């Protein structure tokens, strides 16, 4: 038990020097088997663990070790888990959220960075790190004067081995710039393509200035992608330009945008990657507990669920077990399967965050846009 590490401190003289030595001996948070112990050191009125694990209280108090300024909390963490968290330090009645100063592991997102705890058995994938042997693709920012939204820019990834004489599949990524920044997607593509696990592909990283509106089953967004952006890229690059070679992907509202665009243009996108989709729905009535931003999503999902139809060929769905959206995603999968589409579903012991989505990219992209690894024998 990692609580044993606290017993070790309690058995010590509890002097400043003894605490210093104890901290120096351990890596925090302390993970032993299925348990994890969070530790903070300092003066405070209270210390709370703030995390985003759906199913557990989102705020849990750390207890102080008598005679020291050490605070601790031990909880169960199933093997393979990955949890993002912050510590709330309460002083003078006010709480301040901070990163864990004893833990250097951070995960960044558009709101800043969280500390990260890895459960037993979780390993950061090797293919997310820059590999000097993997030639990098080229990434440019392109401007498009679209009929739908006027001037918009998008990131364009061209694989390292690009040749004009070949034809390529197209991957369109919602919240693309965030995927590049927070999910290392440029490096991931370089590595997986170099390993022959993912096809050499042209990848469009698109972002929206009003994503909560445009990604929530907005007809204009689907039209922008399908009638402006994709035709532009298909005119500009040697693309295969067939449904099997067009993949739409996104996470959270981006997954809703991918599915709703595919529904508005059935048969156009033959591959979908839906990560932690915000697929909120109601079984009765139209009120949802997630707020008005979700109203158009609920309306869309209720329509889809009432009459699920095959709008693509292959759909890869992933979701974190520690997300509140796990229920919506789990219940979507049998509906997708029932349409006859080829569906794969993967869960991970993780939350609604970019590194969860990053960690699933290999599983998903190697199945949706497989490289030639199955055909190469040396």
């Amino acid at each position: 038990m990692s609580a044993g590490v606290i017993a070790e401190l309690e058995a010590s003289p509890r002097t400043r020097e003894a605490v210093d030595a104890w901290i120096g001996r351990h890596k925090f948070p302390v993970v032993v088997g299925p348990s994890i112990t969070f530790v903070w050191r300092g003066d405070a009125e209270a210390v709370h663990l703030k995390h985003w694990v759906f199913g557990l209280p989102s705020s849990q108090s750390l207890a102080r070790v008598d005679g020291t300024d050490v605070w601790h909390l031990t909880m169960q963490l199933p093997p393979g888990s990955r949890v993002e968290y912050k510590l709330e330090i309460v002083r003078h009645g006010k709480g301040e959220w901070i990163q864990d100063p004893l833990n250097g592991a951070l995960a960044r997102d558009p709101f800043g960075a969280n500390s990260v705890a890895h459960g037993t058995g979780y390993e950061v994938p090797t293919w997310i790190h820059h590999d000097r042997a993997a030639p990098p693709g080229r990434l440019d920012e392109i401007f498009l004067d679209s009929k739908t939204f006027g001037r918009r820019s998008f990131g364009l990834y061209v694989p390292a081995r690009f040749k004009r004489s070949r034809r390529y599949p197209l991957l369109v990524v919602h919240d693309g710039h965030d995927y590049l920044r927070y999910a290392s997607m440029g490096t991931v593509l370089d590595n997986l393509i170099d390993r022959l696990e993912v096809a050499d592909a042209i990848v469009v990283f698109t972002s929206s200035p009003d994503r909560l509106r445009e990604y929530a089953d907005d007809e204009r967004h689907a039209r922008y992608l399908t009638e402006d952006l994709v035709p532009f890229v298909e005119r500009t690059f040697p693309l295969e330009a067939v449904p099997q070679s067009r993949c739409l992907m996104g996470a959270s509202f981006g997954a809703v945008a991918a599915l709703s665009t595919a529904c508005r243009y059935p048969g156009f996108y033959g591959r979908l990657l839906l990560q932690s989709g915000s697929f909120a729905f109601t079984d009765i009535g139209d009120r949802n507990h997630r707020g008005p931003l979700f109203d158009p999503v609920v309306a869309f999902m209720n329509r889809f669920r009432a009459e699920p139809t095959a709008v693509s060929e292959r759909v890869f769905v992933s979701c974190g077990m520690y997300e509140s959206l796990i229920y919506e995603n789990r219940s979507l999968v049998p509906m997708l399967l029932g349409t006859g589409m080829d569906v794969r579903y993967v869960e991970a012991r993780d939350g609604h965050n970019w590194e969860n989505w990053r960690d699933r990219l290999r599983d998903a992209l190697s199945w949706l846009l497989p490289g030639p690894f199955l055909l190469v024998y040396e």
Partner: protein
Amino acid sequence: MPAEVIVLGSQHATPDVGAVVRERGLRGPIAIVRAGYQEREADDGALVAALGVPAVNLALHARASAVFADDPAFTAAYRDRQALLRHMQSCYRVRLEKTEDAARTIALRYFEPELLEGEDAVSVEQFRQLDANHVTRCEQVRTAFAALWHPTDRPTVARHRAELTALLAPVEALVIAGGHVASLHNRLELFDVLGLAAGKPIIAWGAGAMVLTDRIVLYHDYPPYGSDVAQVLDSGFGVAPGVVVMPDPSRRLNPDTGPAIARFARRMAPAVCVGMDLGARLDFVDGALVAGRGRHLRPDGGIDAAWTAAPVAPALLALGDSADEVPA
């Protein structure tokens, strides 16, 4: 039909092809095919060094690229053929996956063992029918394409074939390396290289070995997306008949899936399934397997890591011109 075909295990960091060249008394020149490496075809320095004798690269990938650039009508039809073959492969694969699902589900039924055995035989037969149907359809597509377009008569192809004929005339043997098996197969077929090299010994490994067998069988028990079922890509050239060559089993084959191995071995029968790591070898003379060693996937689901085929008859060894160079 080449008089002699030697199939080797995967050639990674420490290739043993040079030892085979010396054993056979070959002094060169040797023709090499690296079309499976596509754009990296010309990077043949390590292979030539490993061979240890003069060698000439037939540059089939580059020649095919030149053909595609020079003959747009043919190229368009060729691309259409390839797209059709890919679509057929995709549908065949869906059927395989459903058949695999059914076989696994049925295998879990609480039936008497004899009944389960009978049902398992039906599952194997369904795989065999899917495989046979797929190969037949692939052959029909290729035959129809050849009948319509007569690839070897296309002026650019004919010009390259003339050059290849001249290159092959003085060589002692043809060495076919691995790489992308479909790309390699197509380029060997486009120029009918085996026809041009008829009678010359062939040494091959990896994808180069797979295309020489009756059927090219793709397999990988550890794909990045979790699981997959072995599939036939197409018929091969059949000069190394009666075997399923499975390169690199130490990285691709899960030895702990007895029922799946048993189904696979029975599905491929009467062909013998042989895992070919470095050091494995199959010797064919006049189309007959005369010696071999490798990892044999048995129909009972076991793997015989020290499998050997029949011993080599001494008379059949006299293809090299210097018996005293054969190492002990």
